[in-house]
């Protein structure tokens, strides 16, 4: 089990698989099965198998890109946290600005600090839908321009090197079909991280202003809404925390006292004269803090957590689906079936020789013909061909095949005693010359002496021979290095 970063491993995997593909598949099968057999307890957790394989492999070229990508990722997270905190702080400071003249309209504060966030949350939910509707998709794309996560992604591209192997390969590569879901949730995580920081910035600013200044909250609207109705709406808005934070739910009396009319200055005029009322007007802050927390921070914490887990889920999916990864898993988890040779081929090195081929030569010989191993059912079959070569068959003798080696020796002795002008041996072109035959030829040469032509008559049979057969005979007889050993193909094809 590995404890390194899932994101770093995915980045490294792309390079590891590419490097690995240069290795012979048979070698990879053996290596990966060996690793896989030690990981059978993780058979149903393929991402763990792949990550462990990656670390076991420990390829020298792999590792830097992943670590670099993770560094960029952390850097961007940090940048988003800082930016979010500052943005939230600045916005809250602007909204909650009070110099003693113009009180803070709680409606205004809610509209700025809570309402847009809820709307954006709605867009997030639309974007998070697993299916795509054309209209939603257009809206999503339009708002993606304001998505801090996406903008952070563009920024990440600048730190990812020029070879497209860093963090940005999640959204800039030919493997986008597999990697992009991870990128999508990474952008989502980044934007939610920004939003959480933004809300924390608001809350921190609010706490700071509440603790360091005297804030006066009122509510004011041109709409014809009574204090009772407004209180009713506030109660509905406060439902999530009313049970355990009753002090953060504005009472009817506070609502009534906090209504502000510009002409009369409403409650504010009284507050200047009654200190107790001034204190009460400041009591809206728990409600505001609770509203930001419950409608801003907490949903964003939830969406950030969801994004984080979805991001990790898709990283794991991408690890298991990246080109080459399913093949790797198959190698690790499938039995290694081998049918190959257990040892390398060892071939005997034959001495190189050459043998003349006297095509269409007029031998002008009267020669006995030895039929080797029943080549022709009737030697008359080849008589006309022999005549064409200028060979007049004297005797028709038989060797090889059903003859014993002793009978062959007797034949050789008897033949050589007659000192023939030459000897023709009729052989089947399609049967390669074996040592048995070479023994016979050598014996013939030994007994009949040098210079006597021995003519190997290659017969191709009824269908004719093949050039490859002739080559085999030439190469094999060439090993004897006998200048008076000749090959004469007879019949078509040779």
């Amino acid at each position, binding site marked *: 089990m590995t404890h390194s970063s899932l994101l770093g491993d995915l980045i490294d995997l792309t390079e590891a698989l590419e490097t690995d*593909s240069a290795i012979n*598949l*048979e070698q990879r099968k053996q290596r990966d*099965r060996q690793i896989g*057999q030690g990981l059978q307890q993780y058979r149903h957790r393929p991402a763990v198998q792949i990550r462990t394989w990656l670390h076991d492999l420990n390829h020298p070229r792999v590792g830097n890109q992943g670590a670099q990508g993770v560094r960029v990722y952390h850097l961007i997270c940090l940048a988003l946290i800082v930016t979010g905190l500052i943005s939230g702080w600045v916005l809250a400071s*602007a*909204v909650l600005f009070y110099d003693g003249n113009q009180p803070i*309209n709680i409606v*205004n504060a809610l509209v*700025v600090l809570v309402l847009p966030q809820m709307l954006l949350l709605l867009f997030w939910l639309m974007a998070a839908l697993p299916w*795509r509707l054309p209209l939603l998709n257009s809206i999503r794309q339009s708002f993606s*321009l304001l998505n801090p996560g996406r*903008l952070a*992604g*563009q*920024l990440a*591209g*600048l730190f990812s090197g020029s070879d497209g192997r860093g963090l940005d390969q999640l959204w800039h590569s*030919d493997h*986008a*079909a*597999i990697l*992009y*879901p991870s990128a999508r949730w990474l952008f989502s995580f980044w934007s939610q991280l920004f939003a959480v920081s933004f809300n924390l910035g608001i809350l921190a600013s609010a706490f700071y202003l509440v603790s360091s200044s005297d804030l006066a909250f009122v509510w004011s609207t041109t709409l014809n809404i009574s204090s009772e109705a407004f209180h009713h709406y506030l109660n509905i808005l406060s439902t999530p925390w009313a049970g355990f934070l009753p002090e953060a739910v504005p009472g009817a009396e506070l609502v009534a006292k906090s209504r502000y009319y510009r002409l009369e200055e409403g409650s504010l005029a009284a507050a200047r004269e009654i200190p107790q009322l001034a204190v009460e007007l400041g009591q809206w802050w728990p409600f505001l803090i609770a509203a930001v927390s419950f409608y801003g921070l907490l949903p964003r914490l939830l969406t950030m957590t969801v994004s984080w887990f979805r991001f990790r889920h898709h990283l794991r*999916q*991408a690890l*298991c*689906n990246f*080109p*080459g990864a*399913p093949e790797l898993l*198959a190698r690790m988890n499938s039995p*290694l*079936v*081998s*049918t*190959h*040779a*257990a*040892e390398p*081929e*060892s*071939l*005997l090195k034959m001495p190189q020789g050459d043998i003349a081929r006297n095509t269409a030569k007029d031998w002008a010989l009267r020669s006995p013909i030895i039929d080797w*191993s*029943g080549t022709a059912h009737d030697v008359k079959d080849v008589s006309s061909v022999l005549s064409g070569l200028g060979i007049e068959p004297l005797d028709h003798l038989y060797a*090889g*095949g*059903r003859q*014993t080696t002793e009978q062959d020796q007797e034949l050789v002795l008897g033949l050589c005693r007659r000192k023939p002008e030459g000897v023709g041996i009729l052989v*089947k072109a*399609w*049967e390669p010359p*074996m*040592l*048995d035959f070479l*023994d016979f030829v050598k014996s013939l040469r030994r007994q009949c002496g040098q210079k006597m032509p021995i003519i190997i008559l290659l017969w191709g*049979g009824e269908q004719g021979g093949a050039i490859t057969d002739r*080559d*085999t005979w030439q190469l094999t007889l060439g090993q004897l290095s006998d200048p008076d050993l000749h090959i004469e193909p007879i019949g078509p094809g040779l």
Partner: protein
Amino acid sequence: MTVPIFAIVGHPNKGKSSIVSTLSEDESVAISPIPGTTMENRHYPMAVDGEVIYELIDTPGFQRARAALEWMRRHARSAVDRAEIVRRFVEEHQADPAFVAECQLLTPILEGAGILYVVDGSRPFGEDYEAEMEILRWTGQPSLALINMIGESDYSGEWQKALGQYFRIVRVFDALEADFDRRVQLLLAFGEIREEWRGALKKAVHILREERARRQALSARVMAEMLAGMISHVRSSRLAPGTDINEVRAAQLQAYKQDLMVMERRCRDEVEQIYNHSNLERQEPLVQLLDEDLFSNQTWVLFGLTRKQLIATGALGGAAAGGVIDLAVHGASLLLGSGLGAVAGGVSAWLTSDRIANVKVLGHPLGGEEISVGPMRNINFPYVVLGRALLHQQIVAERTHAYRGPIEINPQLSTWQVSDAGMRRRFEKLFSRLRKQDGYREDTVSLLAELIEDQIRVPKLFESPSEP
């Protein structure tokens, strides 16, 4: 259970090695035109995670069978001790260079290996085979004769009569053309020569069938990955100021074609390796892009945004900044802050975009003119590429390892079409998803692989593949 071992014996150059090569899927088996070059046995165990299921032994061909048989006949007293005589022959001639081949090939048989006697059925029977068949009969080991059809002529009838006198089981097998089912049938036939080997051979066949299914799935996966890569591939490059756009466009297009070619070639290599073929020579025309003008695109970008998007972003950013002012004055500005902010943001984005685009951060230009080629929009392109890949896969899967010629892939001869309308819709849905580069899911390639695997499993998907 004993491990079945089979010694493949016979005349030299009569297809022993091609049978071994086909059954063991090993193309390293040397096929030499000179008889007698193989003087040592070579072992081909079929092993699953190291456990040997059965073993083939490629042996040297008989070289002096007559002389060996004569020796045996001289020393045999009765038919009872023939196997013992063969053993004595081997023992006494181990160091004799005249009988190296005979001793090598007889050793595993005397140790209990079954005999697979191989002859060439395209050539007539000859009496010179009788000595070696007789020696094999003397060993008393279970045996099977294989008539290997090397050439076009057919003398299998003649051979069956001759072999039938020496061997109880005779099978005809074409080592060059045998498809998977024929190979499996042959393995099962090996089990007929000894009852106790049947279990192991059935197990071997079961494993081979599973392995075949795995190879089909892996090939489909590799092909799906290639398709996804080829369809969604985009090649982009930034235009330096003053560059001839047409030149860049032509270069980009050429590079794009090269990229596709590399992807296709890599897929071919991988499929061949899956089927234990390596270094195959391929003869295949290059893939046609079908419609080259449709996918060359020129855009202006900054931070990955087009100019319009950038202006919109600037305007929205300005509006947001102005909105803070509006809020600070409690709306007294009548949203003038937002309006002016939007205008200022949009105009400044428009005016400064070129200058910002030329700024380099960490060596990267922030933006500028970009030429991009791809992704491939032509709806027929994936089908053409997939058809070629399927044809190649079928040829490779059916090709035996004894066949050493080049692979000829001529898609003109065999066309592939998805006959089932539902299947075609499923293909189109996935291709469309890849083309649009939207709605990505990690399983897109897996789903595509499943569809391709279904196609691979269609028997005789191409009726006339040009191989071999």
